[in-house]
Structures are given as C-alpha cells and as structure tokens.
C-alpha cells in the first residue's frame, strides 16, 4: 500500500474543500477502498475520512419521499421499518449483499461507487482498460464467466457488482451530491456510465463531489416488490444474475411495473423494455416471459457467460411471479 495522509474533518464544507486536488479520495466504510489500496489498484495520496459528517439519518419527507443519508450503513438501511415495509426490494437487495460484518461497515455512498469484481481488474499483472486505460481488456478473450452480457463495449465487459444499486435503479432513486460549485441531483439512470470507450469513468460524479444522500421517490406500489439473487453459493457471494421488480396489479392486469437486473449489466440495469412489455398485460407467466425476452433482447454473450442470458430471464420471471402473486 502506498503511503497517504488521512484527515478527519467534521464539517461538510471542510471535507469538500479538502477533496478538490487530484489523488484525494473520500473514505467511508472503507470496505472497497482499503481492499483495493492493499492491492495497489487505488493509490490515493490523501484520504478524507467522512465518518464524522452528519449524513447518517433516514428521513421520511412530507412529499412522501424517503431521504437516506450517504453514511447510513447498509445494515441500518436494510432493517429500517420504513424500508422493510414500503421498499422490500431494497431491504432484500441489501441483505443479499456481502456479509453482516461488511453490511455493518458499508455505507450507501460507498456502495454506489464500489468497483467491479472482474478478476482481471483485481490482478495487476493483467492488462485491464478500467485499471490502466489503453492497456487492453483481458476478459473479452479470457475467462469471462462472471462478466456482463448487457451494455458491454469493445473496451470492457465488467459487471457492476452492487445489489443495492439494482433495487435503487428499479425505484428510480435520485442521488444528491455537493461539490465546491454547489449541489446537484442526479437521476439514478444517469449516475452510472456505460463503459463505451472509457471504462475508467464509471459515474457522472465529478472529482471532489460528495454524495450526501439518496432519495427514494414515492411509488404507490413499491410495497409489492422483491429482489431475487442467483449465485454460485447461497450467501456471501456476488450475483450471477439478479432481478429487482415492483408491480401494480389490479383485476389481474398490470397497471405499472418497475424492473432492473443485476449481475448481467455493465451498470445497474433498469429495463424500460421489460416494463413496457408488462404494462397493460395480464399478470401471468406468459407476460412475465415476454418481459424477460424484452429485457435480454440486446444481450451479447461471450465465451463463458452465454448461460447468463437464460439465467437472467428465469430469474426475472420468478421474481415477477413472486410479486404478481402478492395480493
């Protein structure tokens, strides 16, 4: 690990003011950043420990939204009564991620920015465009069983590893950020970037901007939602495929739907195509299958991961059945 200077501001403006220089990074739970620093993949010269900032609360706002502070721990969010009741998809996604110890450390802001688990990104002896831009992608012609089938480019096919983000994509969350030039709100689908020609850029957050909160807009039917994660072992493992869904069913017809996929996309994958296929259709297995076909329509398999296309379809159908059956 390279040496760095560690500072602990307890004022938000001071934290933002000290983070503008290149090679300065915020540190929250540390569960992703320290891991990567140990491997010399991240080498910040200065770390700004933001854990003393007042970004730790979960508030129900008068307009029906829920505002989640960026430093709220993944476990606290997962077990919060409002989230359990009104946004089960988010609670289940969080509880399917990592381990209890890690969830006690990991924060909402850090989870949004966690980096891929592509094995070549982690192994500094291999070329990787995300780690060293222009060096090449070892996964495209290498071992790519865990890599993405949606949103890939000729430069990178890494999946986005977060479970929480898949639920937030389905819920249409809004990311609140603050930088030296002021505050911004970023709709979830604009927060993460596709790899395209520059896989080293992963989000639209600007250097030095602090994530302050994530807002969940009110969705009338979000209590009827579910997260299903499929993986190589039952727990403490990243997704091969996952689905976050919410459905509003009335008299056997689907009036509204939210669908996002994990484990298969280069970013948390909201599928507007699947949602369109569902709205107006009967709440039955055929409609769910049609939606799954629509969601994976543009999927592109690589040598070892073609199975993910069928797996993702079945995962989505099963998640939709579960929610469709909720009375």
């Amino acid at each position, binding site marked *: *690990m390279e040496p760095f200077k560690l500072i602990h501001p307890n004022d938000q403006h001071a934290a933002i003011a000290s983070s503008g220089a290149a090679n300065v990074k915020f540190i929250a739970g540390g*569960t992703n950043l320290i891991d990567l620093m140990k491997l010399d993949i991240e080498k910040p010269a200065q770390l700004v420990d933001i854990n003393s900032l007042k970004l730790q609360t979960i508030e129900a706002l008068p307009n029906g939204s829920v505002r989640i502070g960026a430093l709220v721990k993944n476990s606290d969010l997962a077990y919060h009564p409002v989230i359990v009741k009104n946004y089960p998809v988010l609670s289940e996604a969080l509880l399917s991620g990592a381990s209890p110890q890690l969830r006690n450390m990991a924060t909402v802001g850090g989870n949004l920015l966690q980096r891929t688990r592509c094995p070549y990104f982690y192994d500094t002896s291999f070329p990787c465009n995300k780690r060293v831009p222009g060096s090449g992608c070892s996964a495209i012609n290498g071992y790519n069983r865990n890599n993405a089938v949606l949103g890939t480019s000729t430069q990178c096919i890494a999946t986005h590893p977060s479970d929480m983000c898949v639920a937030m994509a389905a819920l249409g969350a809004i990311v609140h950020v603050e930088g030296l030039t002021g505050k911004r709100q970023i709709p979830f689908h604009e927060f993460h970037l596709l790899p395209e020609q520059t896989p080293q850029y992963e989000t639209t957050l600007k250097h030095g901007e602090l994530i302050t909160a994530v807002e969940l807009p009110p969705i009338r039917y979000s209590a009827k939602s579910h997260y299903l994660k499929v993986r190589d072992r039952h727990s403490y493992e990243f997704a091969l495929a996952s689905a976050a869904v919410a459905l509003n069913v009335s008299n056997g017809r689907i009036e509204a739907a939210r669908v996002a996929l994990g484990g298969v996309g280069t970013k948390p994958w909201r599928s507007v195509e699947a949602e369109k296929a569902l709205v107006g259709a009967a709440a039955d297995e055929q409609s769910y299958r049609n939606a799954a076909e629509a969601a994976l329509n543009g999927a592109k398999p690589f040598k070892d991961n073609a199975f993910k296309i069928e797996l993702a379809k079945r995962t989505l159908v099963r998640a939709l059945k579960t929610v469709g059956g909720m009375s």
Partner: protein
Amino acid sequence: MGNNLGISNTDDEEPSSNGTTRRDFLAQITYAGAGLTLVPLLAGTKDILPQAPPPNAETATINLTVNGQKHALNIDERTTLLDALRENLQMTGTKKGCDHGQCGACTVLINGRRVNSCLTFAAMCQGKEIITIEGLAKGDRLHPMQEAFIKHDAFQCGYCTPGQICSAVGLVNEGHVHNDADIHELMSGNICRCGAYQNIVDAIKEVQNIA
C-alpha cells in the same frame, strides 16, 4: 503492502503452559529436525515485525480503546485495526485469514457491532469501544458464547473461532435470529475451513434459546 504482514499469521505469541511460546517451540523443533540452515530465517523473524514505520510513511499518534483500556499508539497511517491489534498491541487473539473481508477471522465488535477489522484503518477507530475475543470474558468467567462453543465442540483447529465467537455475539446483539436458517444466513460472513458449522449453530442456538 507496507507492513510485511505475510509473516504475522504464524506469529502468535501466546505462551503455552510450560512457558514456551509457539515461536520458541518452532525454533526448537527446527534446530532438532532440520539442522542449522533455517536458523537465520527464524532468528530474523522478530526483527521483521513492523514496529517502526518505513521512512516514507505518514505517521500519526492515535488513541484506541480496546476492551475498556485506552492505548496511545504512534503508527503508520496505513495500519488496519487488525494489524494495530496484532502487531502494535500484541493482542493476537484476533486472527488474520484473508486480509480482504472474505473470511471473517478478523471479526471484532465496534460499539457493539461486528465488523471486519482488516478493512478499517486503526486511525478511523478512535473514540470507539473496540471489543476483541480477549475482552469477552469477565475475569475467569467466560462469556456465555465462549462457554457454549466449548460445550458444543464448535471448533477443530480453532483458527476461525475468535472471529466466529465475536460474530455470534454481534448476531445476538442485532436480534434478527428466529430459526436455524437465520443463523446460517447471518453467520455466513465467517468461514470455517474445518467445517465446524453445525456445532457452531448449536452453540448459538443455546445462547439464543432457540429449541
């Protein structure tokens, strides 16, 4: 990595009943068994321990409260809580397995909640109550979870055990366990290579009072 940590895994210094430490014992058998060729290697072990930060490191004086006792430490800022406990405070009860959040051997309680001490910097743990396996017993009276692990034979080699016990104490504090399946799921952050899982579950059930 900055701290020559690869060596520390085998470096426990708990004295055995006859007063020899494990390292002394290793040294003795090596003298006896392999002749003198390995002696310089073993003799050097102590010097490699990362007591003094390397010259280019940023250092800081930090205060840690471990098992109710305050310690002032001058450390390399790169020191994780795990390394501060093991290398600086010589509290080797907390184990290093993977050093990457993947095994749970390093689990300790911070403000009553279980965390992986390998993925937090010691300097970020100031002002918090850190409890390690050494701090669970009250004098000679073992913590109920320690008693239950012994009663149910919930370990073989014992390497994962301090982490398992701290994690199990955290699990009970969290209060989300209602049945066996919950224990399986909520103890999944602790890997046991010996496969003592069923007995670990039995020990936790006893403390949780689940039939």
